[in-house]
């Protein structure tokens, strides 16, 4: 799933559990969380990249197709999608950290599948996970703090 976004060469930041994995966390996460600037152009690019994988708006009762809804993408705040490849959540801003620009400015760049990809920095990821405060997030905070210490 992640490779689809990388291959589409879109500007995004990997956040959430996958960012944790990239920093060295041992926790397994099912959904891919990406922080995007949800401009009209980007939404069209997203539709084009995901077209083959039948993206659906998983929070709508009828599971509407993202390829057709919403018709007016300006009203989009976040996108919670279900695709043939798995779940992907596309968010404009990260709780406890800030909007796309803030997250992107502080992101670290890593090499993945021969391309440079932005990943939320460790400090921001810890802040985000702490802000969410669920048991699984706090468990990841413990791992991330340990990783942070090992990197000093």
């Amino acid at each position, binding site marked *: 799933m*992640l490779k689809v976004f990388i291959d589409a060469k879109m500007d995004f930041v990997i956040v959430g559990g996958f960012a944790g*994995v990239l920093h060295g*966390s*041992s926790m*397994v996460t099912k959904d891919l969380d990406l922080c995007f600037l949800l401009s009209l152009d980007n939404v069209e690019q997203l539709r084009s990249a995901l077209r083959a994988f039948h993206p659906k708006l998983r929070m709508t009762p009828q599971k509407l197709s993202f390829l057709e809804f919403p018709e007016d993408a300006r009203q989009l705040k976040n996108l919670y999608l279900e695709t043939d490849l798995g779940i992907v959540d596309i968010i404009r801003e990260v709780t406890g950290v800030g909007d796309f620009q803030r997250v992107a400015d502080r992101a670290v760049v890593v*090499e993945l*599948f021969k391309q440079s990809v932005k990943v939320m920095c460790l400090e921001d990821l810890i802040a985000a996970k702490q802000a969410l405060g669920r048991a699984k997030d706090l468990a990841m905070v413990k*791992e991330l*703090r340990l990783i942070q210490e090992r990197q000093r």
Partner: protein
Amino acid sequence: MDLRWTLQGGNFIDGILNAMTDVIRDKVKQTEPSDAELEAVQFGVDINLIECNLLLSHEERILQHEAALDLVQELLIAREARYPRS
């Protein structure tokens, strides 16, 4: 007679013993777990898993995670086959 007092009035050997004690104290200090390690262990984190992950490249971490996710998926399918939801 105490052997130490036969060399330079005892100061030489005492100095060596003190220096050795300092080295041992520093070594012991290095192996004491940090607060982050203690908190992680108390929370059930397997430190060895983290250390293994840190030896991998970013791409290897993603591929390893993908393999773990595939395994979880297989286990869920096996569970569903064994205990079908009514």
